[in-house]
């Protein structure tokens, strides 16, 4: 039938694709693109909504947190562990810096320093605060170790009771099934002891 339409029985483009094949393909491709364009809003509607995204930053005042104290704040529905480390803990973390850890990362790189050459930087030359997301990188449990009396694992940091991951005083994974260190959230110093997370 296609041959008849294309010129009274003369075989047109016998070996290659016919005009009809071309139309099938382009119509099919347009149909696929159109369908994908319609499906996308449905899929995208399941992504975090704007109100959830808007709650994505939180300010924290660190001044009441004494050395060796820890506080937990909520950020994006997740706990953020903030620990005011003492010198021994920092030195232990720095002494442990090496590449044989499951997720090697020097302690210094896990601390956000106040911007240099500012009064804030002068006041806190070496921030003693460690800020990490308190969610085990294995399967998302909340590690123990924030409150006094809770187990802190073999490395003095945090211990996840679900599947036995041990984190050190820099929040780095040292032992257990978790693949990554406790994440460091994006944060900045607004003032000497005031941070903005997110």
């Amino acid at each position, binding site marked *: 039938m296609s041959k008849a339409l294309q010129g009274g029985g003369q075989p047109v483009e016998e070996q290659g694709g016919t005009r009809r094949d071309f139309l099938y393909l382009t119509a099919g491709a347009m149909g696929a693109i159109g369908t994908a364009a319609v499906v996308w809003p449905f899929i995208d509607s399941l992504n975090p909504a704007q109100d959830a995204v808007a709650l994505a930053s939180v300010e924290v005042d660190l001044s009441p947190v004494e050395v060796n104290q820890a506080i937990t704040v909520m950020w*994006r529905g997740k706990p953020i562990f903030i620990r005011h480390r003492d010198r021994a803990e920092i030195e232990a973390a720095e002494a442990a810096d090496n590449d044989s850890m499951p997720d090697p990362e020097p302690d210094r790189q896990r601390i956000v320093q106040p911007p240099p050459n500012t009064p804030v930087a002068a006041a806190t030359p070496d921030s003693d605060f460690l800020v990490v997301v308190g969610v085990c990188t294995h399967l998302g449990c909340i590690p123990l170790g924030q409150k006094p009396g809770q187990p802190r694992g073999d490395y003095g940091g945090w211990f996840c009771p679900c599947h036995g991951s041990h984190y050190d005083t820099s929040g780095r994974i040292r032992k257990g099934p978790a693949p990554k260190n406790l994440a460091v959230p994006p944060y900045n110093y607004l003032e000497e002891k005031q941070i903005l997370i997110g």
Partner: protein
Amino acid sequence: MASNGTAPGSKLVKWIDHRLPIFTFMRHETHEYPTPRNLSYWWNFGSLAGIVLVIMIATGLVLAMQYAPHKDLAFDSVERIMRDVNGGWLLRYIHMNGASFFFIVVYIHIFRGLYYGSYKPPREILWLLGVLILLLMMGTAFMGYVLPWGQMSLWGATVITNLFSAIPLVGESIVEWLWGGFSVDNPTLNRFFVFHFLLPFVIVAVVFLHLWALHRFGSNNPLGIDAKGPQDKIPFHPYYTVKDAFGLGVFLIVFAAVVSFAPNFMGHPDNYIPANPLVTPPHIVPEWYFLPFYAMLRAVDFDIAIPFTGIVIIEAKLGGVLVMFGSIALLALLPWLDRSPVRSGRFRPVFKWFFWVFALDCVILGYCGSQPAEGGWIVAAQIATLWYFLHFLAILPLLSILERPKPLPASIGEPVLKGGGTLAGAAAKPMEKA
């Protein structure tokens, strides 16, 4: 009268049947449906599973009318169902334990298929549809367990959705997409409720496909051989309707006993603590029916790397996820892994033993899954996981080649009738009564 293609009955029935032959269809598929005469009680569990599905949908519908899928209301609305709604405690306990009994029945149904080779030609698609139903059931059960919004709900959901973060590159985005936020929160609960409501009806649809595929060649049977003629079969009604009804009675006695006297036996007390995103329960365990898979997930506690280079190809987390989903994928591949032409384990002297070892292996995996992931339990789970995969990938393919099956009987009827196909009339007689 049965085979002339029209249904008996009133003029109205005939009028409808002529236009929509639904009465003929029902009669053909449920009354006359010729079924092997030698089915044992292991064949009760398919219809039992269907009945439990109906029980779950019926109780689920009325529970949904009282439940509030919001994180601030969910836990209290479930407690309200338990205390204030008329008969609510009963309906919820039926629904809660119904999930467990659904899995008990379906697991028996699956192991029956494994033993008697019900997955073999020509029933591969029937088997694949069954695996699909199992997957849908797992998804539905998992999301249902989240709805009461207790501690185990929240943390079980957190652990399971975090599995998807193991996917390289896009894992984190997928998890946030699943959550509709940055943690398991109200949007997650809301969509889980929607899917928990929707999926059972999808299961119903797949069950119909499962039945359609079943009725194409009819049931397998304990001998695993094809029916040679009408003397090997009996009509489904009344013979198997009455047998299924008896089995249902026994099942309901057990079910009612658990619902009445031990409704929380298979549950976890932590789920009666309202969800708290700041405190993880010390020991997160899924419901018992997921334990073997949970054990396999946790068994991979090592990275898979290229030897001597330290280059990690598959992280432990991704490895565990692959193993867990792989264990179900193997079930789907089973018809192509076990190539032995003999279906029934009765005539496979070596397979028979490996079948029971495999069943024991699954129980061991389940027990390992219920224990903390430490020390010996990890090693035990690793050995059991290895055996699970060996069973499918090495033992069954090798047995297909090496095993020498016992001789098969000439027909289903022969051992009973001692002469084979001469008594066709005897089998036809009850059909007239039907």
